[in-house]
């Protein structure tokens, strides 16, 4: 068919041209039969004269293509599929190898022919010219590849995958990488590598087959096409398995080094897979193939390099993926999970997954932490762990800042956040324990951060913020990593904390029996370092009050001792004397104490007035504590520590053994509900009183033995849901708002009408100079004004507030 396309000049020549073609073709296609050199050369020259030499290459390729599509390819596929499922793994491997072997055998003549032609072309033998061996081979390979793999049967991938997996485990077991799963086979006689009885082990065989297969594939340049996918999926699968087995839930040791070692092993196996014959034959190869060879060599090592990069990248990615999933647990485990954090940091720097990490962590916080079922102190504990962990992970603090935003936002909505933080700071066992130790480290809180210029950071060390930093926080302000600063800044102001601390301190001091303030003094000193002296001034005065009270008590007692035995009504009374301006507002409750006590207090006041000229005392009868004994006919309750109202109740029963609630309430000057609540302790816990018909309470002089309480029991208001002597935050807040209301009214009277922003800025200007600086934001003010509008105390139109005309 080629002859038709050749321009033929004469019938005489046709014969010899045809003969010459046959001769050359025979020399190319079956190099086995030797032609004499001169005849071949003549034929080539003759063909060249007729311009047919150009066609030789095309013809060979055409032949190859024909041969491939008509027989080789179908044979290859059917050979691969031939024995249906009944075979064992070992035999399947053999079939695979055999199929490729036949493939190579069938194609070898054509390839050799092409190579021969290429060499002739290169040598210019008989005036031959053309593409040269390399491009001829490339074309041939392209044809083979495209025809062979035009419609690949999945069975090829399947078999290759199976075979590679096997050789992988064989290789690994030979390299001493013990996989645990082999060990628990009952007989223990299974080969580690090929998982058959050791007697039938074919490990060595498998490796030999692997080498042969690799050589065949590389010869046909099919290696990349056939193997890459399988190798990739094997390695990915194994790496994932390995990670699941070794890393998941395991945060306490670093995995990177271990992985690097494993990766080296894997690369050893990979070098076998991508081992081309050229490498193996390198020393003995013929000089003619030198060009081809050096190419093979370099490509083989560069393939390995690529694979190394690929594996590392892949490891980082799946490691980061897994850790992102687990990050919440890692954070809660933090000091123990440091290794995991460090690994994660290393890997995160190599993958582009920060955003993913932040999003996932945020949602983990939201779903696992920020709901009503979690106690505030637990949220704080996790937040503190998160601060510690994330500042390891990302020293720029951007992740911390962004991911913890929901926590901060949520904590702002919890009522007891401040109290919990303060409790933690002061080492209250119910609070977060870390905070106390954090406090004693004693760095000043850098809320204002005006010191960032003077930190002496080397400009060379400056690094730009990561791209995911929150833009408005960029600039010279450095993100703080200090736990206490971060906690304090949840509300954006120190004052709320200090107010709360004052309230906690007041509670503590008022519950003190013996003026012992050593611990509180230490705490205040530590807080002073953090918040600055001026902020803690009020607390210092409170502590001083305690010391002064002790001295005054001592003085008054001394005075008392000079009097006779009979005139010592004050023996049992001691007092804590407060500087009211410096203490947080205390709960105001009315309580009339029984005459002996109130008389004692009067006497005490008189003594005080003598001691301090022009000063007097205003008692807070409901505050404090009382230690007393109750003697009944058949039992004595000793050393009960109760609140004043409890004491007052029982003292009244001393003079009259039966009281109604109303009578008591009148006598005590306290509301009935309160008395009823308080009486419950005597009634239920101690069994001293009982309720009779008609709502009367009487003393139980003879109690049943079972109700005997232990001696010296401390009873501090167990019936009260919250035994705080200070007013709650919301009450205080309300008071402050009322204070603002006076200002607002005055402003509106003078200026007629004002916008919200104007009112806000005016208030800030005037009220912020008061003793307790309140940070109030516009929203809060707006809510307050809206309330006033609803109560018809204020009018609003077009965003302008004014007072109603009638008022």
């Amino acid at each position, binding site marked *: 068919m080629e002859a038709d396309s050749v321009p033929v000049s004469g019938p005489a020549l046709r014969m010899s041209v045809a003969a010459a073609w046959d001769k050359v073709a025979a020399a190319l296609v079956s190099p086995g039969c030797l032609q004499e050199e001169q005849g071949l050369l003549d034929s080539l020259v003759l063909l060249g004269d007729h311009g047919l030499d150009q066609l030789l290459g095309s013809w060979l390729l055409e032949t190859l293509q024909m041969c491939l599509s008509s027989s080789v390819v179908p044979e290859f596929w059917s050979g691969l599929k031939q024995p249906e499922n009944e075979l064992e793994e070992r035999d399947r491997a053999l079939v695979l190898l055999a199929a490729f072997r036949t493939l190579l055998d069938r194609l070898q003549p054509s390839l050799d022919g092409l190579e021969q032609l290429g060499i002739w072309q290169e040598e210019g033998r008989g005036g031959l010219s053309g593409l040269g061996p390399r491009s001829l081979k490339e074309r041939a390979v392209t044809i083979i590849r495209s025809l062979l793999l035009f419609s690949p049967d999945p069975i090829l991938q399947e078999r290759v995958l199976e075979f590679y997996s096997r050789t992988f485990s064989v290789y690994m077991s030979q390299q001493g990488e013990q996989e645990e799963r082999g060990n628990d086979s009952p007989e223990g006689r299974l080969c580690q590598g090929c998982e058959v009885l050791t007697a039938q082990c074919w490990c060595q065989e498998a490796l030999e087959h692997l080498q042969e297969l690799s050589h065949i594939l590389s010869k046909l340049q099919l290696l990349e096409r056939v193997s890459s996918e399988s190798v990739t999926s094997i390695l990915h699968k194994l790496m994932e398995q390995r990670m699941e087995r070794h890393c998941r839930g395991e945060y306490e040791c670093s995995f990177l080094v271990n992985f690097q070692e494993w990766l080296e092993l894997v690369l050893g196996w990979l070098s076998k897979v991508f081992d081309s014959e050229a490498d193996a034959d390198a020393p003995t190869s013929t000089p003619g193939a030198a060009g081809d060879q050096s190419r093979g060599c370099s490509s083989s090592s560069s393939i390995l390099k690529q694979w190394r990069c690929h594996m590392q990248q892949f490891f980082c990615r799946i490691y980061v993926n897994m850790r992102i999933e687990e990050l919440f647990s890692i954070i809660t485990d933090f000091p123990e999970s440091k290794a995991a954090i460090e690994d994660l940091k290393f890997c995160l720097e190599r993958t582009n997954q920060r955003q993913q990490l932040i999003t996932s962590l945020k949602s983990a916080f939201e779903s696992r932490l920020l709901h009503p079922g979690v106690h505030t102190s637990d949220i704080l504990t996790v937040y503190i762990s998160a601060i510690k962990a994330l500042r390891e992970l990302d020293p720029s603090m951007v992740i911390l800042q962004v991911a913890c935003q929901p926590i901060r936002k949520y904590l702002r909505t919890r009522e007891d956040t401040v109290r919990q933080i303060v409790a933690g700071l002061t080492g209250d066992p119910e609070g977060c324990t870390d905070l106390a130790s954090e406090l004693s480290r004693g760095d000043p809180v850098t809320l204002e951060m005006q010191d960032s210029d003077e930190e002496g950071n080397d400009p060379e060390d400056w690094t730009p913020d990561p791209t995911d930093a929150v833009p408005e926080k960029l600039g010279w302000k450095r993100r703080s990593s200090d736990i206490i600063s971060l906690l304090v800044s949840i509300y954006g102001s120190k004052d709320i904390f200090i107010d709360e601390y004052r309230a906690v301190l007041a509670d503590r001091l008022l519950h003190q029996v013996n003026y012992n303030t050593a611990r509180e003094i230490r705490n205040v000193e530590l807080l002073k370092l953090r918040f600055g002296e001026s902020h803690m001034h009020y607390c210092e005065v409170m502590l001083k009050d305690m010391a002064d009270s002790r001295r005054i008590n001592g003085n008054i007692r001394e005075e008392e001792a000079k009097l006779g035995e009979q005139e010592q009504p004050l023996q049992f009374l001691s*007092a804590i004397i*407060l500087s*009211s301006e410096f203490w947080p507002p205390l709960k105001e409750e009315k309580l009339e104490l029984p005459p002996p006590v109130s008389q004692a207090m009067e006497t005490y006041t008189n003594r005080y007035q003598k001691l301090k000229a022009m000063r007097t005392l205003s*008692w807070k009868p409901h505050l404090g504590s009382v230690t007393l*004994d109750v003697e009944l006919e058949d039992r004595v309750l000793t050393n009960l520590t109760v609140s004043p109202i409890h004491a007052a109740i029982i003292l009244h029963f001393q003079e009259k053994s039966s009281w109604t609630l109303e009578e008591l309430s009148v006598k005590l000057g306290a509301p009935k509900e309160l008395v009823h609540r308080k009486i419950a302790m005597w009634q239920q816990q101690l069994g001293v009183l009982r309720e009779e018909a008609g709502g009367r309470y009487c003393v139980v002089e003879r109690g049943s033995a079972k109700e005997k309480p232990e001696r010296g029991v401390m009873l501090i208001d167990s019936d009260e849901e919250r035994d705080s002597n200070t007013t709650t935050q919301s009450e205080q807040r309300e008071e402050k708002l009322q204070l603002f209301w006076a200002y607002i009214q005055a402003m509106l009277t003078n200026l007629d009408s004002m916008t919200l922003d104007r009112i806000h800025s005016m208030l800030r200007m005037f009220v912020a100079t008061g003793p307790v600086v309140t940070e109030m934001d516009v929203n809060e003010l707006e809510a307050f004004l809206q309330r006033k509008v609803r109560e018809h105390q204020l009018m609003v139109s077009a965003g302008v507030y004014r007072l109603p005309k009638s008022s």
Partner: protein
Amino acid sequence: MKVKIHQWNGVASWLWVANDENCGICRMPFNGCCPDCKVPGDDCPLVWGQCSHCFHMHCILKWLNSQQVQQQCPMCRQEWKFKE
């Protein structure tokens, strides 16, 4: 039944016996202290004039020192004399 009190820990706050709540000079509460002081009470006492007006001692002394000619009570302009 007999109740025996061992110890009664009361709570009281001290206050100046004065006819006003705030110091007429610094406008701070008497029970607090003058702007220059940190601790109220003994450290920042009140003083009364014969006109019966009273001030933080530090405040009135500062005031009197600043008066060139005559020493007057800032409230009633009578001559200031300390009440004994």
